């Protein structure tokens, strides 16, 4: 059996896949963030192209609509010199009834060196990782995990706060259905964060407390803001099936992050949002565009984190090779 989890792989040995944050240790997460650091600088370089992955091909298999994550991975691959193969749900033979595994085997037959997968079914990346020889990177699966989002959030927090350890982090919104929230809960709890989950009661079920230590659930946003170092706002997903929708007016009334409510957090608190934001719904424009907002930094950091992961998982370079961005950027 192939080992599919990163967790049993020593830090400096190249792991096979990135399926989620849950299997990672704090050391492994720190290693990835450290690797991403030089790639952050690199985004400001006038010539944004490395030869690190020249000749390598990364398959981007997006079985669920995605704009920002897909473009971020495609750009990260391009800036490392890799070529990409694109599969989008709308244009694929999935519409013709082909199964996931047949689609993935077809992609594999074109000999990519790694595959990035976004899928609406939780566990789909693990499903294909068990059957493929090449590295699999999870770009979001169902309501399970979105590990690269949590890593770019962590990089953003570490830049602004200087550390991840011991922060008070409040997550606002539909936690139950959020893969971003799950990955962030796993990641931040590795560093001893105190997590406050806030939203309408049916979106913050008690079982969420089992995900990690130091989780509390709060239904009043004013209470959730107290002492927060970081406020993560989740998008309100209106496309949920099988769930009776709640009143959006109610949501705005009770849970929208506006300037008044943000004043209840620590004065230097930062605001994160995985995007796409819906202005005036979960977040007030004054907050989204305000000085505490990190929303656009998150996007840039997404490139750095994804470059680090592609470099780490797809390249043939030995683990102790010099960092490509340090090497090239003069």
């Amino acid at each position, binding site marked *: 059996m192939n080992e599919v989890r990163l967790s049993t792989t020593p830090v400096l040995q190249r792991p096979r896949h990135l399926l989620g944050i*849950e299997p990672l240790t704090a050391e492994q997460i720190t290693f990835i963030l450290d690797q991403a650091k030089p790639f952050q600088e690199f985004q400001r370089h006038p010539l944004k192209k490395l030869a690190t992955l020249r000749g390598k091909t990364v398959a981007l298999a997006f079985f669920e609509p995605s704009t920002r994550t897909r473009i971020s991975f495609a750009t990260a691959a391009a800036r490392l010199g890799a070529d990409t193969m694109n599969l989008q749900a709308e244009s694929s033979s999935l519409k013709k009834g082909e*199964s*996931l*595994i047949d689609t993935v085997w077809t992609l594999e037959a074109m000999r990519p060196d790694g595959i990035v997968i976004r*899928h*609406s*079914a*939780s*566990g*789909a990346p*693990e*499903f294909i990782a068990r059957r493929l020889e090449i590295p699999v990177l999870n770009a979001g*699966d*169902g*309501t*399970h*995990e979105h590990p690269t989002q949590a890593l770019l959030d962590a990089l953003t927090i570490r830049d602004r706060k200087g550390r991840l350890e011991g922060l008070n982090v409040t997550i606002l919104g539909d936690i*139950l259905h959020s*893969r971003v929230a*799950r990955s962030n809960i796993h990641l931040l709890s590795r560093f001893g964060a105190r997590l406050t989950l806030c939203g309408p009661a049916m979106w913050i*079920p008690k*079982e*969420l407390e*089992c*995900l990690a230590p130091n989780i509390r659930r709060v239904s009043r946003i004013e209470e959730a803001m107290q002492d927060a170092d970081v406020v993560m706002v989740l998008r309100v997903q209106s496309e949920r*099936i*099988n769930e009776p929708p709640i009143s959006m007016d109610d949501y705005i009334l009770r849970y929208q992050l506006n300037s008044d409510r943000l004043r209840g957090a620590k004065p230097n608190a930062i605001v994160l949002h995985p995007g796409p934001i819906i202005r005036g719904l979960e977040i007030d424009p004054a907050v989204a565009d305000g000085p505490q907002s990190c929303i656009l930094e998150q996007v840039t950091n997404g490139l750095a984190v994804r470059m680090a992961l592609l470099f780490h998982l797809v390249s043939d370079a030995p683990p102790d090779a010099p960092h490509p961005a340090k090497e090239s950027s003069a």
Partner: protein
Amino acid sequence: MILITGGRVLDPASGTDAISDVLIDGNRIARVGPGISAPDAEVLNASGSIVAPGFIDLHCHLREPGQEISETIETGTRAAVAGGFTAVCCMPNTQPVNDNAAVTRSIVDRAATAAHARVWPIGAASVGSKGEALAEIAGMQDAGIVAVSDDGRPIATAKLMRQVMEYCGSLGLPVIDHCEDHSLAAGGVMREGPRSIRLGLKGIPAASESICVGRDVEIAALTGARLHIAHFSTRASLDYVRTAKAKGLAVTCEVTPHHFTLIDEDVVYDTTYKMNPPLASRHDRDALLEGLADGTVDAIATDHAPHHPASKDVEFDRAPFGVTGFETAIALALSELVHTKRISLMRLVELFTAGPGRVLGIERKLAAKSPADITIFSPEHKWTFRAADSASRSRNTPFDGRDFRGAPTATIVAGRIVYRRPAAAATA
């Protein structure tokens, strides 16, 4: 003639527990007792094994007609006899649905030529199991059904349930219900709880089952008819059944080996763990163990639900519900219930014979003139289950590769040895 020698005869119907011989003549049992001499008989040495009345499975899916890619009456009953079952009750969710006498007759006729075990069909309660009009229940009864059910889904409404129970009460047929409140369960793929939250899989709350059990028990009280709760999985459901029994209502229930063996925390992204009802919490599973031990549970049933490998080799969300179960049922019951000292061997035999027999109103015992349906099993035989070697056409089991202590040794249906464990048979 067949002479079974030296086995430990366990018969819950008579309370017999003794080393004894059993002589079979034709399709009937001729004699049961020590030291039987029958020079012309074929001898089956059962020393070290248990000799029991033929095991009955109240709940399985043979997929014929219509889904022969997953199973047939021939392959399904071959797996059943390899698991020690001499009679199996097949659910009506075939294609077409067994909701009329013609389909029932086709199953009975096919079984007469192809089956290795007795096949007792269960008819649909409503036309197409759609929950609207009553099916041709009396016609199916004449053709050979032993119960009715809309299994795979609950009997849709309380009103329909009342009508079905009143009608079946007058016909003397038990009504078997798959209890699930669809509005609560819809879209769910595993039991709601910490594990479903962690895996990001949509949960089915435990209450979706017990709400429906509660409804059915109320209707059993209203109608006085016989109600059998299929494959229940929660403590709240058990409590409803226990209370109903205490009130003297004609309510019975079954549990499956996978539900008393596994729990929701065992679920991984492997579709062999996807079944309905889903694997329950430890708290609920422990209630099943209590009910099995204290007599509240009437039967162990497999809910053998074969699915072709291609249909299960998909994302968890997209896979059909169901696991195969014939060949692992006895071994799981021995491992989880008897070897752990939760129940006696006699109680185990009851759960597979007299218990399901009572539900159907069919008696099976080891006594002269009784049908020669006999299950012989070793409580000690060590073996490893290999799904690839299964007689079933399907492989959807979470127990592939599991080591077991205890296995069927031989299965006799109507005086014919239909299964003998290869090689190491009967060794303890």
